Every structure is written in structure tokens, then in C-alpha cells.
């Protein structure tokens, strides 16, 4: 007669499947397991296989590293309270009525550069660079140096939700806005710069900044694949980007 009683808990079966049970305990379980235990073991293995079959493991690892702050190096350390004041000054003096000007070469990078690179139609990402005498807007293709400090502003024609990602020269991706958290933050037209400010480190290569906007709340992980793995963007999202070159 088949014994239906369970003698081994799911917890131990999980550990058995994970291969973390000591060998003697695993042997004990083998001998003590009832038919019901063996059936449950098979179920748990099938669940695991099903989960893994439907998982993009590389993407999960990338997301976990991002959340664990295990990206190769802290490229964009948050600026502390000292910079909060400076960033506020940056915001205060930005002149939105400046006329368009040609792209700014490195030698003149501290001049005002009012052209805003816009892709994606109805949203625009504006990058404000803190300068000694105030601030200026950074354009797509502009040069930056390690230590440069920036804040972001996203223009949209309607309220929604926004997140900003940074991709460095090695391809490592970081969520910049919000810097910590899992959800996009709310976005109001005309609300000005987004909370927080960042500074560039000395990691070489271009810095790609991507703003993602949607009408409804979204999780950063949901758009991570599009950012990191060049996957299709989730329905309902709009995005725009600015690429900066580092000296």
C-alpha cells in the first residue's frame, strides 16, 4: 500500500533540491521519504524547472546586481547635503528662453548651450550641469568630466511617471532617478528638475542617459530589459536619451 503521509517538509525538500543539505541528512531523507514526499519532491522540481524556463537569467542577475549595488563601480554616487544646495542653485538660474546654439565643443563647454536634444516626440530630457557661475544645459554629444554634477528635468505634455537610467561605457546600467527604489516616480508638467543630483565618476567611455515616461506607474525592473538588453520597450512607455562623452 502506498503511504500518503508526508514525513519531510517542503523546507527540507527545497534544501535537498538546492543541494545544500549535508550528505548524511540527504541520505536520511531518502530512506525516510514516503511516496507522498517523493511526489512532492517531483512537484517542487517541476515548479523550479518551469520558473527557470520562463526566466531570462542574465536579466535577473543584472537586476539583482543593480539592486545590490554590485555594478562594477559606483559610477554615480549620490551627492550629499552639500550639493543639495548647489543643485538648488543650478535649478534656480536655468534660462529656458535662451536661443538655440550650435553643439558645444569641449573647449567652450562652460558657455551656455541651450539646445535640448529631444527624441521620442512629446518628452524631452534636459540635463543641467552645475558650473562655477551657475549652470548650463548639456546637449547630446556634449563633453563631461569626472566630478561634473548634474540634475535632470523631463518635459512631458501630460502628468505621468518617470525613471532615468544611466548606461556607462562598459554597458553597466544604473537607475539614477529614483536612485533607490523600485518604482518610477511621479512626473508633473512644468514641475522642474527631478529630485536628487548625481556626479560623474572617472569611469571611461560615453554616458548614455535614458528617460522613460509612462502615463501609469511602472516598475524599474519592467523597463530594465529594454535599457540593458535592447529589448522592445513595454507598451505605454515613451523614452528619450542623451549621450554624453567623457574626457
Amino acid at each position, binding site marked *: 500500500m502506498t503511504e500518503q503521509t508526508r514525513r519531510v517538509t517542503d523546507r527540507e525538500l527545497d534544501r535537498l533540491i*538546492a543541494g545544500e543539505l549535508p550528505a548524511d541528512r540527504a541520505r536520511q531523507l531518502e530512506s525516510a521519504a514516503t511516496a507522498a514526499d517523493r511526489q512532492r519532491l517531483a512537484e517542487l522540481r517541476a515548479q523550479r524547472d518551469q520558473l527557470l524556463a520562463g526566466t531570462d537569467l542574465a536579466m535577473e542577475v543584472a537586476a539583482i546586481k543593480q539592486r545590490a549595488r554590485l555594478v562594477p563601480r559606483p559610477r554615480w554616487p549620490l551627492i550629499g547635503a552639500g550639493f543639495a544646495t548647489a543643485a538648488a542653485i543650478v535649478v534656480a538660474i536655468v534660462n529656458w528662453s535662451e536661443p538655440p546654439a550650435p553643439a558645444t565643443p569641449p573647449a567652450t563647454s562652460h558657455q551656455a548651450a541651450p539646445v535640448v536634444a529631444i527624441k521620442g516626440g512629446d518628452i524631452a530630457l534636459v540635463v543641467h550641469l552645475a558650473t562655477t557661475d551657475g549652470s548650463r544645459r548639456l546637449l547630446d554629444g556634449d563633453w563631461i568630466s569626472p566630478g561634473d554634477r548634474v540634475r535632470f528635468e523631463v518635459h512631458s505634455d501630460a502628468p505621468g511617471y518617470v525613471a532615468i537610467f544611466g548606461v556607462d561605457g562598459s554597458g553597466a546600467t544604473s537607475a539614477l532617478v529614483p536612485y533607490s527604489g523600485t518604482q518610477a516616480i511621479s512626473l508633473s508638467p512644468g514641475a522642474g528638475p527631478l529630485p536628487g543630483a548625481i556626479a560623474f565618476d572617472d569611469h571611461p567611455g560615453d554616458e548614455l542617459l535614458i528617460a522613460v515616461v509612462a502615463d501609469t506607474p511602472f516598475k524599474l525592473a519592467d523597463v530594465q530589459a529594454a535599457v540593458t538588453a535592447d529589448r522592445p520597450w513595454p507598451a505605454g512607455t515613451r523614452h528619450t536619451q542623451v549621450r554624453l562623452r567623457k574626457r
Partner: protein
Amino acid sequence: MIGSHPTDSEIAELYRRYAAPLTRIGHRLIRDSEEVHDLVQESFARYLRQRTRWSRGGSPFAVLYRILTNAALDRLRRQATEQRRQPDLVTLTAPSGMELGRIGQVRDLAILTRGLSETELAIAVMYHVEGYTQEEIARTEKLSRRTIGKALQKVEQHVRRRATRLGYLPVSNKPERAHR
């Protein structure tokens, strides 16, 4: 074993081993699949962030389980606070023999267990949500049955105090046992 500088393949291996049981346990606490996925990811991230704390040779699953259950209960508490909802009535059953009382609903457990230690919370979830016996918890946690009993007793006292303070009512004497 995860080193001080975990590689992608080490993290992938960790995920392959533990994502499935963590997801299953997450679903016992939180209904929304996307939120469970997020919770599992966050649990791995916290594990890696705190990796220097975990002693070599210990069970990663035990640590991940603790992280996940605490994070899940934190979320449930936050949701309850954000929604400003009146908590559902809790099922506090009368003690029967050596078994302590049961708590019927996970969100109630989250609200009523605020202030307990991580270990006590993990034990409470194993007992009240996952339905393990004290003996089973003692075996898997490598603690004595007496320790588990004391922890559950403390949980129950804490819960009863908070239930009284928050206006919960004991509405049922019918034991409610979770299924493994």
C-alpha cells in the same frame, strides 16, 4: 558560496537554486505575482549586500527565507498604512494543548507582529503561514523545540497586546491551519 566579489555566474547559481522556493513562499504572503517577483529580486539583492554577515557554511536558504519573509511583512505593513485601511478581523484561536493560537490572515500577521525580531518573525511565518509544526521548525532552524515554543509564545503575547491596542477582536475559535 558567495564571495566578497560575487560573479555573475555565482549570482545566477544562487538564483537557480533558491528562486523557486522563495517565489512559492512569497506567494503565500503576497498575492500579486509581479510584486512577488520584485520581492524575490530584492531578497537576493539584500542577501548579496549583506553577504559579509553570513557565516561560511550556513544555509543560504535560511537567510534568504528570513530576508524574504521580513521584507514581505514590511511591504504588507506599508500597504496597510498607505491605504489607511481598517485591518480585517484576526482569527486568534484559543490555545489547544501544546499548540499555540493561530493567526488567520497574513496582512493581520504583518500588522500585529510589528516590533518583533527577524528570527521571531521568520518562525511566526513558518508556523502561522506555512503551517509547519514546532518540531519541524526546530529541525530546520537547528534550534530546540523549547526555543521555538518560547519564540511562538512571545509572538502570541505580542500579537495579543497589539490586537487589543489596535482594536482587533478574536472572532473565531476554529483553528485555521495553513497547508504546506
